[in-house]
Structures are given as structure tokens and as C-alpha cells.
């Protein structure tokens, strides 16, 4: 604990006498780590940490879930997904409920598991729910390449992968969003490289630091941000140097661009962001379930008091949403932010909404 005491002292020194500062993390793993390690409680009161749209499940649109549910109920289709997608509400139902009603839904821990699933079920069409950011997209791409080279013809992607830098650009152009610095996602930076975030400092003059995921690493990145504010040069600090390179992981990028191309996409609660998504290239259309077996869905747009959109942009804390902790809890989630373990609302509900005094 000696090291962290020093780090916290340094943060206190740098923060002293400054006006309120708002730093945003844009990675669900950071959100959870900040809550789990109790960092908020030991920071000086003028430093505020807010969460951005960094939880892949939370930014996945309603109609994507509706499509996944529709496929799971079709005869001879298996929908394979990471576990945290199960309870995400679509416009009417969730995959967990679909599964209880006889839908064919399987939990996998890697898209690669789907290769085996497809081989073991040659008479079924296996669909992987490919959501996530630059971190998971290369594995989905590698899975498609592996399926192609192994001649597997019954594995498909329902693809809704998203890119982080365009979302940050959108946030900075949004007048409601107030951010004094970004804790940049370490895992995304491993793939795309810290240079990909250069526009934050060049165009927007926003202090930025790529952070690791241990409590100490987050504290170190916070010090980087404070030093930049304290008269240092505004730049993209790489505080996850052990694994993040300026240029990123070139072979992952190559695999990614072999299979995917950049496209516009819609973010739940935020709306369409230009060039912020990935679409399978025409060469791989045979693995894109929406092009091979399109499914008709009727999205049920309902009005809700859910303020996920503002939560995801760090405009409000979850506690400001009228549904938080009342109508919307992890057991009965209304917004996706309450579903995923990495969701901002779920993290607030689980770790943040209550205090432990003794």
C-alpha cells in the first residue's frame, strides 16, 4: 500500500487549489476497476470521475437485440454470445427470456468457441453476436478467417462492432458534455495504438492518458492528466507502456481490416455516429447473417424515462435518472447500462450507490 499512498499524495498536491476537474474513463473495465478498488473515495473532492460510453453491451442498439432474439427462435439456428448479453433488454424481450421460451442461445467465452459449436452442429446455423470495440473485433475477424480456411459454412456473425475514437470526437463536439481529461482505454490502445488518440490533444487540446487496469495504474494515469493541467504539455500520455505501442498491434489491425471496413453505426442512447462502426467487407458477405438470412423485426419504440443516453455521455450520474434503483435495478433492468457488469448504472448500483460506514 506504500506505493499507492505516495500516488494519492501526489494527486492531492496537484489537485490543490484547482477548480473542479472532471475526468472521463471510456472503458467498462476501467469503470469496474475504479469502483471495485474504491478509488473515488480516496480522491480529493475537486476531482470527479465520470464514465463514458465504454461498455460494449450498453451501447448496443435495441433492434440488434431484437434481431438476435428473432434468430434464436428460428428453427435450426443457434445464437452464441458472451454471457453479459443475455439479460440486455431489446424493445420487447431479452435473450434470457427468449432462451426460457425455447430459443436456442449458448454462452461462449470467445468467438473461437463458435468454430467448435459450428462443427459439432453441422445441420444448424451458428450465429455469433459480434459486439464490442477494437479490442474484440480482431478476434471476431480471426474467427471468420479461420472459418473460411477450415471450410466451415454454418458460422455467421451478427455484427455490431464499434470504434472508440469517433465516439470521443462526438463527445467533444457535444456542448452538454464537460470533460477535462480522458482516461483512455488500455486494451483498445493495445490494438489501435496510442497515436490513434492524437487528435484529442492536437484538435481539442484535451489532456489524455492511456491507462492500465490495476488501481495503481489508474492513479498513475490520473497523475499524468493532472500534470498536463498543471502547466505540463498537453499530450497523449502512454501510462500502459508495458503493452501499448504508439502504432498498436499491426497484425491485429491487418486481420481486422481484412474482414471489416469502417461504416456509420448507431449507439444506444446516443444515436448514429459517423464512421464509428465496422461492417463486414463484401468478400466476407457469406459470413454476415444479415446478408445471408435477413430477418424481419418490428422494433417496438416505446417512450421511457430511462436516461442511459445522458449517463453514457457522462452528462449525469446514474443517480440522477428517475428510474435508477427504483424501476431499474440489475434484476429488472430497463436500460442496458444496468445490465452488463461493466455498465455504468450497474457499477453504481452494485458499488457506488451505497456507502459502508463503520
Amino acid at each position, binding site marked *: 500500500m506504500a506505493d*499507492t499512498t505516495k500516488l494519492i499524495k501526489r494527486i492531492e498536491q496537484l489537485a490543490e487549489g484547482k477548480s473542479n476537474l472532471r475526468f472521463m474513463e471510456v472503458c467498462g473495465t476501467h469503470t469496474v476497476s475504479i469502483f471495485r478498488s*474504491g478509488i473515488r473515495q480516496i480522491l480529493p473532492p475537486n476531482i470527479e470521475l465520470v464514465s463514458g460510453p465504454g461498455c460494449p453491451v450498453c451501447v448496443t442498439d435495441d433492434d440488434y437485440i431484437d434481431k438476435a432474439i428473432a434468430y434464436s427462435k428460428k428453427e435450426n439456428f443457434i445464437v452464441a454470445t458472451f454471457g453479459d448479453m443475455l439479460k440486455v433488454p431489446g424493445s420487447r424481450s431479452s435473450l434470457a427470456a427468449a*432462451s426460457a421460451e425455447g430459443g436456442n442461445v449458448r454462452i461462449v*467465452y470467445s468467438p473461437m468457441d463458435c468454430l467448435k459449436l459450428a462443427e459439432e452442429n453441422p445441420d444448424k446455423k451458428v450465429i455469433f453476436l459480434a459486439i464490442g470495440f477494437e479490442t474484440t473485433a480482431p478476434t471476431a475477424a480471426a474467427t471468420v478467417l479461420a472459418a473460411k480456411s477450415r471450410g466451415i459454412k454454418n458460422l455467421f456473425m451478427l455484427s455490431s462492432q464499434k470504434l472508440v475514437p469517433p465516439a470521443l470526437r462526438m463527445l467533444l463536439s457535444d456542448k452538454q458534455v464537460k470533460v477535462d481529461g480522458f482516461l483512455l482505454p488500455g486494451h483498445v490502445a493495445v490494438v489501435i495504438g496510442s497515436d490513434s488518440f492524437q487528435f484529442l490533444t492536437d484538435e481539442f487540446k484535451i489532456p489524455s492518458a492511456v491507462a492500465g487496469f490495476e488501481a495503481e495504474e489508474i492513479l498513475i494515469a490520473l497523475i499524468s492528466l493532472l500534470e498536463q493541467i498543471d502547466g505540463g504539455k498537453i499530450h497523449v500520455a502512454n501510462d500502459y507502456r508495458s503493452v501499448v505501442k504508439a502504432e498498436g498491434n499491426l497484425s491485429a489491425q491487418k486481420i481486422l481490416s481484412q474482414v471489416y471496413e469502417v461504416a456509420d453505426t448507431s449507439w444506444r442512447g446516443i444515436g448514429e455516429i459517423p464512421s464509428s462502426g465496422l461492417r463486414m467487407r463484401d468478400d466476407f458477405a457469406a459470413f454476415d447473417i444479415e446478408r445471408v438470412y435477413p430477418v424481419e423485426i418490428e422494433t417496438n419504440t416505446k417512450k421511457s424515462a430511462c436516461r442511459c443516453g445522458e449517463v453514457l455521455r457522462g452528462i449525469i450520474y446514474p443517480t440522477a435518472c428517475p428510474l435508477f434503483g427504483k424501476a431499474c435495478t440489475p434484476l429488472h433492468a430497463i436500460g442496458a447500462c444496468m445490465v452488463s457488469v*461493466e455498465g455504468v448504472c450497474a457499477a453504481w448500483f452494485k458499488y457506488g450507490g451505497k456507502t*459502508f460506514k463503520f
Partner: protein
Amino acid sequence: MSEKILMAHGAGGKLSGQLVREIILPAFGNEILNELHDGAKIGRLAMTTDSYVVRPIFFSGGNIGKLAVCGTVNDLAVTGAVPKFLSVGVIIEEGFEIEDLKKIAKTMAEAANEAGIKIVTGDTKVVGKGQADGIFINTAGVGELIDGVNISAANVRVGMKILVSGFIGDHATAILGGRHGLDLPDTIKSDCAPLNKLVSEMLSIEPKIAMLRDATRGGIAAVLNEIAEAAQVGILLDEEKIPVREEVRGVCDILGFDVLELANEGKIIAVVPAESSDKILAAMRQNVYGINAVEIGEVVKNSSGKVGLRTAVGGIRIVDMPIGELVPRIC
């Protein structure tokens, strides 16, 4: 849409609790059942039952049969009883390998032998292919309550210490490893073991141990929340003292699990008087299943019904009751 049973209803978390409150207790509630301990106390006897559906059936460190014996033995032990007799009911899917059944029976006999209990009655049913998944086992156990011992949340007092009998999260990690072909080091095995001797040694050193729980589904997070709620006290844990293997921590990081919520099959949580904590620990460390026993926290006055964790960086956060299905069919 009518409500349906979800996997999470069987996961030992909030939804399981809801089933118990809304269906089980209204239907069967009585003064013995209402205690909701791992085992029922009936006069000088303790009784418990559990069903086992683990997948895979064979895993690193054990198999479904070992689990079925140890789980029920441990539930009796933490009720403050000496386990004596066991019944075994098996439901087998048509086509199951006889050789596998032999292996399972052999391990069950070994575990029963180690625990010093007799398997005295049983039942076998076979169902058609696809109507079960290999083999499911139910065991019920009867034990004799130890004189002078009263394991009950009502005895938990402020200032008491929280002990754990060793590394947490091993069982769930081994099961996940087996299920997903994760290439885990040999050190990651299920901790599945009969703990009745460890428990009786602890109780002979200090009969006034207030609470004992077997930290299975929902891990120590679920068990401690249940204790805090039942006893209406706060429990504060010290993160740095909780024993977790590096490899288990690694798997948790990759899969996004909180190790406090991972199931164990050979770990006891004990709430003990502060003055006897050291001598209980010394006794635990003499037993092969308690070598790594440590004190991980204490019972505090405020924050009644909640569990807090002092983190490595010095913050304190809430340890909530796990909600749903972390790892389905873990036991």
C-alpha cells in the same frame, strides 16, 4: 408474457432468494425450515439435502460424485453436526458409460470413507437420451448435533472475527477451465473436500463459534451477505488478507468475474469470538484443508446488513449479494 424459470433462479443469488421467499416458504414454511441454514436442526439431529448437476461431470480435482458426498457432508458440518448417514439418488441418462458410473461410485465411497459417514439408502432412475445430461445426483444427509454448540446468526456479535479456511475461487475456476478448455496450470483444481473433521476440530477448540458457512454458490460474497442480513450487523473485509491464487485472479480478470462471488466446494467461512480467533486459526492450519486459513475481516457496528471491503488502495466499497448466473451448473 408468463414468467418462466431462468438459469439465474438456480444460481444462489438474488433470484434464488426470491424463489425461496415467494414459493418455497409460503408453501412449506415452518419453524425449522424458516431458519434457512444449510441444514435443518431437528431436536438433536441435523438433516440436509442437495442435488448435483455439475458440468463437466469429471473435472480437475474431482467429479460429480465427490461433490455430492462432500457438499452434503459440509452442509451438515456447518450446521454444527457430526455427519453420520447419507442417501444417494441418481438420475442417469440412457447411454451413460457404465465405466464412468463405476468411477463416480468409487470416488463417492472414498469421500464417504474419508468423512466417516455411511451411505445407507439410495435410488436409481434412468431417463431417455436427451432427457438429462449424463448424470444428476441427489444426496441427503443426517447428522448428530454437537452438544454445547449452537451455530446461529443470532449469536454473531460486533467485534467478532471472520475467518476463511483457505484460497477462494478454485472450484469455479477449475470447472470453467474444464468447460472451456482453458489451459490452466495444475495448481488450479477444485477444492472439493469433506470439511467435517476440520469443523469439529474448530468447534472443540471453541464451541462458541457463532456462525459457520460453506462458501459454495455465490462465493464468500453471498455467504457473508446472508450472515450480515440474518444477524443485522455490518461485516468489513480486508481485501489484502483474502487468499486468492494468482492464476485464479488472472482467470477472473479475463472473464470479468469477481473472485468473491466464485463458488468454492471446500472452504469454510467462520464468525468467531475475537479472543479465540488465533487459537482457532492455529487449529485449522493443522488440518490439511485449513493450512491456508486466515482472518479476513470483522463484524462491525454500523452498516447493518451490509458487507464492505477495504481495498488495497485504501477505499472501502460495498460487496453486494451476487445477482444471478455467474457460472451455471457449478455444482
